[in-house]
């Protein structure tokens, strides 16, 4: 296996030099970030007029949950309210970038089966736990929506959904990349010249 001689990071860098996969990563990360904010209720329905409110910036360090933090700014738009919490944005960006990279590799696996030998859905599944981490004061949102009953063990499990998601995403990314032969990605009908791909508009992966 050619790929085993190169580090996962190197393979990832190689993959992201292709504009298509770069766009997939960024696009998926953006969508996931929005979903993450909705799950955390930092983006929610309700709001009249247009207002921008701020709170004491030191509140950004105050935790509202295991890995969630107080907002310090609020944008109210007609029908939508957006809370801006630097802590949540940072956590969300870390998870979103990992999801974006996982999805880029997953897309590669679908498009280039010869280049990747791994369960194609692993990266997608790993992205789910963090979306379940949103809580409504005393109870996780998903529990309220589904009318579930929680045990002490489940409550503890909900506390670690975000780090669990990050760890799962890192593991799946590493596993998939270790089993990916980036040199076999075809660019304009030719094999990938290892480490020699430019992010120019002329480099497009083919189906």
């Amino acid at each position, binding site marked *: 296996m050619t790929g085993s001689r190169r580090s996962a990071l190197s393979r990832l860098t190689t993959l992201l030099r292709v504009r298509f996969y770069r766009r997939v990563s960024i696009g998926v990360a953006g969508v996931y970030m929005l979903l993450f904010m909705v799950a955390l*209720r930092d983006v*929610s*329905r*309700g*709001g*009249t007029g247009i207002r921008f*409110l*701020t*709170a*004491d910036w030191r*509140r950004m360090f*105050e*935790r*509202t*949950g*295991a890995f969630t933090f*107080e*907002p*310090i*700014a*609020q944008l109210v738009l007609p029908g939508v*309210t957006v*809370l801006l919490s630097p802590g949540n944005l940072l956590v969300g960006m870390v998870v979103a970038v990992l999801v974006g990279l996982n999805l880029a590799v997953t897309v590669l696996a679908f498009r280039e089966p010869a280049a990747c030998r791994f369960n194609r859905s692993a990266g997608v599944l790993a992205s789910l736990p963090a979306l379940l981490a949103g*809580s*409504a*004061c*005393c*109870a*996780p*949102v998903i*529990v*309220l929506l589904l*009318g*579930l*009953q*929680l*045990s*002490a063990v489940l*409550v*503890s499990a*909900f*506390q670690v959904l975000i780090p669990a998601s990050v760890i799962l995403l890192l593991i799946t990314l590493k596993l998939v990349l270790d089993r990916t032969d980036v040199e076999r990605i075809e660019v304009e009908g030719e094999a990938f010249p290892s480490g020699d791909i430019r992010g120019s508009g002329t480099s497009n992966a083919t189906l």
Partner: protein
Amino acid sequence: MRRIFLLFCVMLTVFTADRLLTASGAKASQSLPLAETSYVLGDSVETYAAFMMSGGPPPDGIPSIDRPRFRDADRADLRPDDIVMGFHHNGEARAYPQKVMVWHEIVNDRVGGLNVAITYCPLTATAQGFKRGDTTLGVSGQLLNSNVVLFDRESGSRFSQIAAVGLDGRHRGRTLDEVNVVWTTWERWRAAFPETLVLSDETGHLRNYERDPYGSYTPRSGYYSQAGTIFPLMHSSDRHHEKEMVVGARTSDRSVYFVLSDLARARVQSTASFVAVYDPGLDAGHLYLRGDEDPEVLPRGNGMYELGGQVYAASDLPLTSAISVEAFFFAWYSFYPESEFVDEGGVAPGESVRGDLGR
């Protein structure tokens, strides 16, 4: 001589330490007012403490409002049927909108010269007020029977809201000094107290106060009407729908609940130890102790009641009043399974009621 001097020094040290400890204890007890008599408990404090569990947020993860701002009634951003928690003392009245309280659960306020903590648990629909002295109460992040556990920021002791009892720390086993808080609508509260002030949504924290994360009370939907509960309970019963609103009370040796909708129809209901009258103005129940006598309270017009030939308002009967607490049935039962109750006008014991609650 030297030994006598050393012995004197030791005695002086012990005496001084004892005085200091006594003084600090006295100061502490002044900080958080506690009741002279405790409420009856459905289970021991040890059992409560062992059953307490995390709800998810860390201490103060649900931030209390410690510097509340208020608006005049005319400037309140409330609809007539919005739920408020009302408290009045010494000629001052306050309305705490449920849509704000659902995000904060505690307001450390001063009303009519009295320092109080108005507390609300969305999971159990309980609004209760406690004298707080010079300290403030916060949300611990723990739950007991799905009900918020408060903590005293001065001593660190945690308290069950519904049982009002200290679960650990210095105040373990002691009972908070409770005041009456009314669960009603803005329209009703304002009619009863036109000069009331209303808690502003300028809380110092940023939230979407237009959205209740649990559901809605206008009309009732989501968690507030669904059958079932989220967190484990020490006691449960299918006597009524879990989210049926009851009004309960407890003394040092007994407890009671009345189904609010039944009380509204009957206007007066009695158990062995308590009598309840319905206040149509506030859509609330007022509970009194029956005592040794058997007071015959008769409903009269305009929401008034007759007792001993005199006519009184529902809140002013010349009987020993009890602190009335409105709660979801499941919550009251989980703390007080031995409560007296009226078996009429509702669902017979043992009969199961499921599905969404329309009231």
